[in-house]
């Protein structure tokens, strides 16, 4: 360093040398991606991989040589450092060993040669100046590998059978891996060269290495998802039919949500925000086009059909999708609404009228839910008529206020704000949907709400009749949902209660530490052990046969430790200042816990539930023992409809029972296991479809968890 050039304080980064270096970095990145793509089978392996590597090797070597002898201003250290020496020593030992023992056929003797060559290269590396030491050995290695691939020494059809263990490594695998390693090494060297070697250069090199490894990790995960999705999607979507009205409604809701999802301008955002905003823009564009297509289908009475999906030009809207969309819109409106408290007598009357109308509709529709039939007077159903009147009036009000606002007129203060009247309109629509769901009768005619039949989705909505007859996952899906819900309902209150006791009441002692250790141990206990416990202990006590209830308890036991651990950590991290402040106001400990500590730790609790549900929803082993239903049940477990309440003179006077809870059932991972192990006649596509649905169910739970965590966080912060 003593004879170094004078270092520029500001480095504009656009000298020819730097530009060439960045070119090599980009090339290395390309080689790395090429390796990944070949590994995953997106491109086929070929000899040109060797050409790429050879070019990279030559370019990397040039960077070092130009820095040493070409008069380019860089700041290399005297030596490339010990880690570079170790890497080169290892690489060259391995390379020489392979070449000598396999290619040249020297066998074990080759490795003896290698043991001398590797350290020799390492020592040479150590003694050269950094700009050479960090580039030339790497360049030589990458170039050499390139040549072996180019000349066909290692071709896609080449195989290597290591003598030590029973495996065959084909060229199809070796070439992509070597390309990735070459890309990593050349990338690191050229990234070091880009910043002129020295401390800054090595930082740049390390950064590139880490980024590429992270990229590899992410692409493995993405590949896994894409793989399942690709295999499963065709069977899941088989014969799917959607009414265009329903599809239009769903697409519109998705459009509204994605437009409101973020307010980032792609032109001004930077970093990940920029990527996010472009993704959002793309999603909005696609949804907009889809909406147009559905509108066209209705208007032109044209059936759109793809490979497996058909969109029929019906203009009615399905009740359940309508309900879903209505609730989403209500939520959006409620978030954007400002409080409205009218201060004139007329205004208060209007507010009261709105409250009465909404209240009446809600009560009536709830009555319909209780009796399960339509409330009608003289053959006319009350609820839809009321809802249409209320919705119509408020829709008119929306149009009127909107028009007045556009034309710039001021409105009297008794007129409710747009969000309020809009909310009433959507609310009336939701009531109509509920009416259709509860009573099974349609609302309206050609344009209106259909009670059912808006979506026909055979794979998801039907039970399977057995292998080879009809594919369907409905009973298993319902089983999974019930089992997971039950487990969460059972475990979360217990775990939060225990966490409150351990954190707030129990002194830090041997006891609490023992509990902590036991909880951690319980979380790592194999699930089949939990299953065995359920089979031996719970099953005989609850109905004597495997059941949904036993499965809920067993999965709840599995969930318990993780939720306990995360809740406890979250409560520990609630600042003591809050507890002091509350105590200083004379508020009792229990009330402090309830209103300050538990709300502040809710996000942490939910994180635990999310992680835990991800595990238990895919759990198969304990379900084999404690759920153990027929592989392909013909009907879904009807938990809600089989609640029975009986009043009797015996204590406890009100008997609640639910026989469906005590029946065997199926679950998605369980059915997946059954499909795969069925042997002769097994349908692989059925398995992939089931796997995809399982993935979607888990992701849906995950999304619900994330949404509720965001809700609780937003209550704690702005």
């Amino acid at each position, binding site marked *: 360093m003593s004879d170094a050039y004078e270092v520029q304080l500001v480095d504009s980064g656009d000298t020819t040398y730097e530009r060439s270096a960045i070119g090599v970095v980009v090339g290395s990145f390309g080689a790395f991606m090429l390796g990944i793509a070949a590994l995953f089978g997106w491109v086929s392996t070929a000899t040109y991989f060797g050409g790429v590597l050879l070019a990279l090797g030559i370019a990397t070597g040039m960077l070092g040589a130009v820095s040493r002898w070409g008069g380019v201003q860089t700041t290399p250290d005297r030596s490339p450092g010990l880690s570079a020496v170790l890497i080169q020593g290892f690489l060259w030992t391995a390379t020489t060993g392979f070449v000598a023992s396999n290619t040249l056929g020297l066998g074990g003797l080759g490795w003896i040669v290698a043991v001398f060559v590797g350290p020799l290269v390492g020592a040479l590396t150590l003694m050269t100046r950094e700009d050479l030491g960090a580039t030339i050995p790497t360049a030589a290695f990458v170039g050499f590998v390139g040549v072996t691939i180019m000349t066909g020494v290692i071709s896609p059809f080449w195989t290597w059978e290591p003598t030590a263990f029973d495996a065959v490594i084909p060229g199809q695998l070796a070439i992509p891996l070597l390309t990735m390693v070459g890309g990593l090494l050349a990338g690191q060297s050229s990234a070091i060269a880009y910043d002129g070697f020295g401390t800054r250069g090595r930082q740049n090199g390390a950064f590139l290495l880490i980024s590429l490894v992270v990229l590899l990790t992410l692409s493995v995960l993405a590949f896994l998802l894409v793989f399942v999705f690709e295999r499963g999607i065709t069977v899941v979507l088989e014969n799917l039919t959607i009414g265009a009205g329903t599809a239009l409604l769903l697409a519109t809701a998705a459009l509204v949500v994605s437009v409101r999802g973020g307010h980032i301008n792609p032109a001004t955002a930077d970093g990940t925000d920029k990527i996010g905003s472009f993704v959002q823009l793309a999603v909005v564009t696609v949804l907009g086009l889809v909406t147009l297509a559905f509108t066209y289908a209705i208007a032109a009475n044209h059936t759109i059909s793809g490979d497996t999906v058909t969109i029929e030009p019906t203009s009615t809207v399905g009740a359940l999708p309508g309900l879903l969309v209505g609730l989403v819109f209500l939520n959006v409106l409620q978030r954007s609404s400002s409080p409205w408290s009218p201060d004139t007598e007329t205004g208060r009357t209007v507010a009261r009228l709105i409250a009465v109308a909404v209240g009446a509709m809600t009560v009536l529709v709830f009555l319909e839910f209780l009796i399960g039939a339509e409330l009608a007077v003289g053959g006319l159903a009350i609820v839809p008529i009321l809802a249409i009147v209320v919705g119509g009036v408020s829709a008119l009000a929306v149009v009127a206020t909107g028009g007045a606002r556009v034309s710039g007129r001021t409105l009297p203060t008794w007129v409710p704000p747009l969000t309020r009247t809009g909310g009433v309109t959507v609310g009336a629509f939701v009531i109509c949907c509920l009416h259709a769901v509860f009573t099974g009768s349609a609302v309206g005619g050609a344009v209106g709400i259909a009670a059912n039949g808006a979506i026909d989705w055979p794979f998801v909505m039907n039970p399977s009749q057995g292998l080879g007859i009809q594919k369907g996952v409905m009973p298993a899906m319902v089983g999974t949902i019930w089992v997971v819900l039950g487990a969460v309902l059972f475990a979360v209150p217990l775990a939060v209660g225990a966490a409150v006791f351990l954190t707030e009441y129990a002194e830090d002692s041997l006891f609490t530490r023992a509990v902590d250790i036991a909880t951690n141990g319980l979380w790592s206990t194999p699930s089949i052990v939990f299953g065995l416990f359920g089979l031996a202990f719970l099953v005989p006590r609850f109905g004597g046969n495997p059941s949904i209830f036993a499965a809920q308890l067993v999965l709840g036991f599995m969930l318990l430790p993780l939720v306990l651990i995360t809740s406890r950590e979250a409560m520990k991290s609630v*600042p003591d*200042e*809050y*507890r*002091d*402040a*509350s*105590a*200083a*106001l*004379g*508020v*009792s400990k229990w*009330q402090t816990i309830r*209103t*300050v500590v538990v*709300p*502040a730790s809710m996000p942490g609790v939910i994180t635990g539930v999310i992680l835990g549900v991800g595990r238990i929803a895919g759990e198969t082993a304990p379900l084999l023992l404690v759920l153990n239903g027929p592989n392909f049940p013909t009907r879904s477990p009807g938990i809600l409809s089989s609640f029975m309440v009986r009043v009797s003179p015996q204590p406890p006077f009100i008997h609640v029972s639910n026989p469906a809870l005590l029946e065997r059932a199926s679950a998605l991972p369980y059915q997946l296991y059954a499909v795969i192990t069925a042997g002769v006649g097994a349908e692989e596509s059925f398995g992939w479809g089931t796997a995809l649905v399982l993935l979607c169910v888990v992701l849906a739970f995950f999304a619900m968890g994330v949404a509720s965590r965001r809700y609780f966080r937003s*209550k*704690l*912060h*702005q």
Partner: protein
Amino acid sequence: MTESSVTTTTERTDADAVTSSNETTTGESEERTKAEWREYTFDGEPVLSVEDLNVWYGDDHALTDISIDIPEKSVTALIGPSGCGKSTFLRCLNRMNDRIKGASVDGAVTFNGQNIYADGTNLVELRKRIGMVFQHPNPFPKSIRENVAYGPRKHGDLERGLVPRLLGRDDKDREDELVEQCLRDAALWDEVEDRLDDNALGLSGGQQQRLCIARCLAVDPEVILMDEPASALDPIATAKIEDLIEELAKEYTVIVVTHNMQQAARISDQTAVFLTGGELVEFDDTDKIFENPESQRVEDYVTGKFG
């Protein structure tokens, strides 16, 4: 191994104790704390009267034989170097020391004629009457409105929520009134009037501290204890808090711990000086303490010769 290390610790503790007691003796030989320096006479009954208060944290004697009478509707400043026991003393007055593990208190604190360390003291009621503001602003992660209304809601003075609304007993109007009154008293209303439902953590440090004072006022205390309420704030926010303290003294008895002697001189009516070793050296009118203290050590401290 364990035994030997235990012995070492004990020895060291003993040695420390010897050194510290030596120091105290030297200090006392130079100048003995006289009882009359701590006697402060005023008209009327004291609102808080402390007699022979001793506090230990484990083996550490934090406060030694403190006796002091505090007049009502005035500002009393507690000053002294770090670790002299001012905050400990303050926390004894509403029994917040009960919350610290290993703290033991001996002596009597009489509040309106009742000893608050007697058995069967209702801590909830005590802390409602003797409120406290902490060194670091510590609003709850809730809205400004909820922060102010927190105490009264929890004490059942304000009924809010679904059940009272259905029963027609919702106290929304009373709550709005109370929130406005407390925020006005804490000189914060004009700044937060239009964002009462925003999260309190979005306020600046000075605003948060005034919100904490408003939250304390909402439970209608008689005495307000403040533990260095302005030490985490900038000069402008500090000036606001100081004005506020003087204003509050018209209605409440304020006892404030501070490190800042100018602050004590500006805002307080009487000042108590604690010096190292947890003893109260002198208690008198603020002017007297700062201009003509009886004790040489106090004079050295307030003039900045040590401490």
